[in-house]
């Protein structure tokens, strides 16, 4: 990659209002903040942040200010009401952006409120007819001439995979990306929230039929005993639970072997 070409590109990050899992207070959505961090660290020529939501809500504004505090000079807001479909609004805004359409559109993997389906980036990619890469943690390089980019995708257990994708593309940023920078009060104060008008929003009618309530505790599946005879049921109920108190080894020379054996059994070696 050449340094110049990679910086000529335009990145837009979609931001949503998150919710703290314990206090239920609005906050920067963790993944969206990471997406913004990926963009800020890559520092392309054109950086934009886009939010679709209710601008009349003071708490939403506080959260947008928190995003501004990370150092992005402004956030464009598509005003939508709480019951409208943000995906539709965003898609039509981006589809009509013309030259303003970014090379890379970053999102979180799913929102922290509402349906939280994680479907929005897929929908946007489909509507814009561009590829989508989920769960990335970094943008590695961009080759504008060839029209491709390399990104790092995070897999479970801390593993990583390199993905090459065509430009432009949509990517969702997961929790494995760099921790978002601290939001500073001063930058938040100086940042600007631009309201983008003239977008027709569509009401999300399907959702009105849904019933939403606080999450119930999911019953944990017990070890089901499929006993056919009374004797087996009896045995299952009374059998001594395998003691977890482990083996003790006192000899140094046997120790290494024992450890390596266990590691191999667990397939970590």
């Amino acid at each position, binding site marked *: 990659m050449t340094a110049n070409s990679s910086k000529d590109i335009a990145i837009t990050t979609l931001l949503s209002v998150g*919710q703290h*899992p314990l206090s239920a207070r609005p906050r920067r959505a963790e993944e969206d903040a990471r997406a913004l961090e990926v963009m800020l660290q890559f520092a392309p020529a054109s950086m934009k942040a886009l939010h679709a939501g209710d601008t009349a809500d003071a708490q939403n504004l506080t959260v947008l200010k928190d995003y501004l505090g990370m150092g992005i000079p402004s956030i464009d807001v598509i005003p939508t009401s709480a019951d409208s479909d943000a995906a539709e609004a965003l898609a039509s805004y981006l589809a009509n952006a013309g030259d303003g359409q970014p090379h890379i559109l970053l999102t979180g993997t*799913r929102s*922290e*409120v509402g*349906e*939280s389906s*994680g*479907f929005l980036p*897929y929908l946007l990619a*489909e509507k814009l007819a561009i*590829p989508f*890469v*989920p*769960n990335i943690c970094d943008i590695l390089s961009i080759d504008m001439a060839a029209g491709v980019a*390399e990104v790092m*995708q995070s*897999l*479970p*257990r*801390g593993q*990583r*995979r*390199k*993905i090459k*994708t*065509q430009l432009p*593309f949509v990517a969702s940023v997961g929790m*494995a990306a760099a921790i978002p920078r601290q939001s500073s009060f001063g930058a938040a104060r100086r940042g600007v929230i631009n309201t983008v008008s003239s977008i027709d929003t569509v009401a999300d009618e*399907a959702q009105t*039929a*849904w019933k*939403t*309530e*606080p*999450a*119930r505790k999911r019953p*944990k*599946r017990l070890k*089901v005993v*499929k006993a*056919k005879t009374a*004797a087996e049921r009896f045995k299952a109920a009374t059998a001594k639970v395998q003691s977890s108190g*482990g*083996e*003790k*080894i*006192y*000899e*140094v*020379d046997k*120790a*290494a072997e*024992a*450890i*390596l054996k*266990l*590691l191999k059994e667990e397939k*970590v*070696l």
Partner: protein
Amino acid sequence: MVIRRNRRLEWIARNRLHPEHSAVLMGVNGGDEIGPSGLVRKRPHDIGFIGPNGIKRIDRLGNSLATMAGAGAHKGQAEVSLPLYVVENASQYVAVVLDAPEGRLSEHDKDLLGLAQQLKAAADNAASTAVAAIIFSSAAPEAARIESYQLAGVDRLIVLPAESDDYQPEQRAAQICALTAQYDFIHLCFPDTVLGGADTGRRVAANLAERPATSVWKLDGTQLICRGAAGKTDITRPLSKVIIALEQCADQIDESKHECLALSADAITLSASRIEDLGKAQVNPNDIDLTEANFILSGGNGIEDWDRFHEAARLLGATEGASRVAVDDGFMPRERQVGATGKWVTARVYIAVGISGAIQHMQGIGQCDKVIAINTDDSCDMVKRADLSIIADSDAILTALIETLSNQSSAEFHPQEAVA
């Protein structure tokens, strides 16, 4: 003839727990007991057998005593054939796109098949509805695999061609979309696994312009219960075409056997993928966040030689962790601290070297599968928690580990290098 009573034998005959009980019952007199009157007595207690739990059982099904006794009992049962569930003339399908790594069903896949069977039962025309499992594979699955599919509730099986195990989400989504056009599935179920079903399912849904039900964890009649707001709410919503379900979304199938008949898929030409898998990146174990790491070597106050610790971690390929004391003393950086005040880890194997196990530390490793403790004190809390404990000086053990590992690696790799 005067029959003398042998009171000892009588006592043994009464005492079921006596080691000679059965021999006595069989009778020193040839199996028949002669009563005090000289008549041969029937022994109604002699029928049946003593079960493994010590309770007498009378087997009226005719299974012989010998096969039931001891370990034979379990073998007999495994062969009990489950009822075969047949769908004749299937007219519609509930599709399940399985992750099935290397063709093997994961627990999540089995849960999903259970959910699919529930969906099938709830369908309008349940009798002629079949659960069709879709797997990606370069070859037809072997017989043993097929049998496992049958037991997991697969009525029909569709094998879609896959060139490799690379990450090709666009191709796979396109294949499933084509298949959907062919069979018009009433539901498409995906396991909600990161970069597996969760990804493919959403791609398919976007392509089909269907709104997927995600994070589904229960089918309640004809309603789906989904987790919303990143796990904070439950959303009850009508059935949808694309269903992306969490683990344990339904009970697995275990009391019936299914046909697992092959269904064919029309061959399609795939357009070139816009996404290319460049392969896994080498990750330095120490760059893995502790909370994500699979294998952690954690050091504490008992470590004298930290270089040796780092060397051992490097050879083992383990992510390094530390106790609070080790961090406070500056041997390890703060982000390596394990425990309630540091990181809560979920490793498969956690080796605690010279950590006695303060309560905060034990809290932090609560979710680890296997714990190995290396400590000089065999009464410390870490040893109590550990699955394997080495009671010895930590430096000696680390040295032994390093030696063994470097011997092994030289034994394993050097000959090849020599050949090369």
